[in-house]
């Protein structure tokens, strides 16, 4: 039975409990698939397909400012809301409380990101945090514990990360160990795609926020560690902006 009214957007949002309304995300079917119009140079290159994968962006340490770029290369990212907490700020007109959402995102295969956003509504905070998490996606290097059999499953070496006074250390583990970690950092490691790992922590792990960030920093350091197999000389290639400069020079039609 088709009870669809030809909804005009204002009618859908203005009346009734349009909590998700006001155009902030709860669009009609068509709106959700609205074309992405890139604003940054990198975005334009990605949309045109000039960049093959996310790793090219990482090689040149290009800052990613549009989350659609990450969506384009990593469509299978899964997000998880770790915590929603109310935070208060003292203003002249009294206390102002808002919701703060902590989100971790990852594809369980080598990419992970963290995001935090504060807002009046829970849904807005979560959405904003997911976008920030996508912008902070980082590659994860995995290695082997003993013999190089099968797929890499653990961190390649002992890495450590620090945030505030919380320090987190990741240590390689044999296959089958699983993730030996506190419940919250465990989620981050799972979404990163690390299957086996030991962890130890120091400092005030009570501040879970700093502890999670420390784990994230440790995961990020996996690609910052120079191991002998990376000793070979790199052949330098042109940076994307240099290589495609002609394409970028063409002025975009507004």
């Amino acid at each position, binding site marked *: 039975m088709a009870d669809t009214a030809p909804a005009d957007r204002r009618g859908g949002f203005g009346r009734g409990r349009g909590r998700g309304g006001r155009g902030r995300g709860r669009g009609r079917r068509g709106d959700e698939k609205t074309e992405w119009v890139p604003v940054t140079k990198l975005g334009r290159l990605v949309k045109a397909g000039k960049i093959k994968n996310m790793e090219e962006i990482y090689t040149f340490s290009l800052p990613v400012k549009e989350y659609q770029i990450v969506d384009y290369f990593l469509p299978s990212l899964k997000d998880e809301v770790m915590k929603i*907490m109310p935070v208060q700020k003292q203003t002249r007109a009294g206390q*102002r*409380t808002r919701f703060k959402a902590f989100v971790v995102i990852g594809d369980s295969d080598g990419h992970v990101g963290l995001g935090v956003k504060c807002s009046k509504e829970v849904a807005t905070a979560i959405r904003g945090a997911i976008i*920030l998490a996508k912008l902070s996606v980082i590659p994860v290097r995995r290695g082997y514990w003993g013999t190089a059999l099968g797929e890499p499953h653990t961190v390649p070496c002992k890495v450590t990360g620090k945030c505030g006074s919380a320090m987190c250390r990741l240590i390689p583990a044999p296959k089958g*160990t699983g993730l*030996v970690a*506190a419940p919250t950092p465990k989620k981050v490691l799972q979404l990163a795609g690390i299957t086996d790992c*030991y962890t130890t922590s120091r400092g005030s792990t009570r501040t879970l926020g700093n502890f999670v960030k420390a784990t994230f920093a440790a995961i990020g350091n996996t690609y910052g560690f120079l191991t002998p197999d990376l000793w070979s000389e790199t052949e330098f290639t042109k940076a994307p902006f240099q290589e495609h400069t002609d394409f970028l020079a063409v002025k975009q039609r507004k």
Partner: protein
Amino acid sequence: MDDGGEWCTVKSKHSRNESNKTKESSNRRRPNKSSTRSGTSKSKSDVRPRRKSQAATATTAIGTTTTSAKKIDTTTAATTNTQNPYHLPENADDSNDEDEEDDVNDPINDPVPPYHTTIMTMCPLPDCLSDRPFLDTTALTDHFKTDHKLIFKNLHHMYMALDPYLKRWGELLRSKPITEYATPDSTDSDVYIIDPRKCELDQKLRTEMQRHALDEVLNTQQKERDGPAKETRKCLFCKVICENRTALFKHMFGEHNFNIGLPDNLVNVNEFLDLLESKLIKLQCLYCEKTFTSAPVLRKHMRKKKHFKIAAKNRQYDKFYVINYLEPGKNWEHFERDNVESDDEKSDASNDSWAEWDEEEPEVSMCLLCPETESSPQEAWQHMEKKHGFDLTRIRKQLGLDFYKTIVLINYIRHQSSLDRCFVCGTTVEDLSLLEKHLDEKKCLSQPLDSNAEFWKDPKYLLPTYEGDPLLTGFDDDSDIDEEEDEKEETK
């Protein structure tokens, strides 16, 4: 709540009268209509036996008095509509049904006392004579004023956490006389006012209750996100089954233009959807709250008037929206007006700070040598040192254990203890709690462990004996780090 979804008990009699007035007036004005109706029903009687019976009972209802009409109305509803009117098997075109009156006021628009909403609570104050629970807030405030000579200032601020708030006040008033907290009313000196601005205790109490309610709601929401949100549910307006909550809301918005907000902003969503469904089953329109005679009439009404929304003014829905718990006294209407964020809010540094997440995660860890548990691994190590004399740092230094060897040791001890065996000498005791005595007697822990024992090389001890054993993550791994720092200093 027993009232079965009627949004306030005051209204119920009123709305029933309204709908009956509708029927009777329509009857008077259009007598032909009813005859044509029965005519058509008779002609189609062979094809649709159910419709005929519905039409027949309806025509008899119109002719009779108000009270019996009410009765028949409800029986009709009971027999034909115990399920969602939108889930009934397909009926053909229902355009022959009677039109509703357009010039009668919708029950939702009837005036109502301010902040009126349904609740179910007993009066907790001492020396209270009423023993029945109160079903709406106006009755409760009136009772306080007349029977207890008490007014709570801005009680509507606390409707989200009304029960615990009133209970606390009940206790407080039992212990001390009312004049300690309240000031007499200026107009009527017999009545006392409890004002949060004047009474500090009240203010503290309110913020505490508010905070508590908010935390509870957020916890419930988090649990929902992990569990019930992933369950399948049938759409309220059609027979499509949606695989999880996000898909359900998307479908209801996309197909039926039904918007009750994003699922992330709601709490107790299953209860909410059940409440809406019960209203539909009672043949009540969700938006204007009018009751109808049959399912096709209701469907037609909602489709024509585009009433696929919920009544915004109905405060019964307030408790399902998280934003209402945010600040006392401000509900979603307040925030809707206030939708422009000031600049200093956006550039606030603490906006992105992770350090604000200050929470202790309890990791219950069991002692290696006895069945006692502690709330964190650090405490467990302290317990072992104090009670059993088992000092891990000393053993590590003694045997020169690095990280992996320590892991092996812990897993080995766990394994042995699970078999009720002493890990040093290998003797079995009857029960883990007796192991402590054995260690005391034989002084096993003061003997140095054999560095050449078989278990050091056994790969199975690299895997955790207990899954999620917090002791493996919670021992102080100072030694490796100190070594690195020493090396750095030496090379300088």
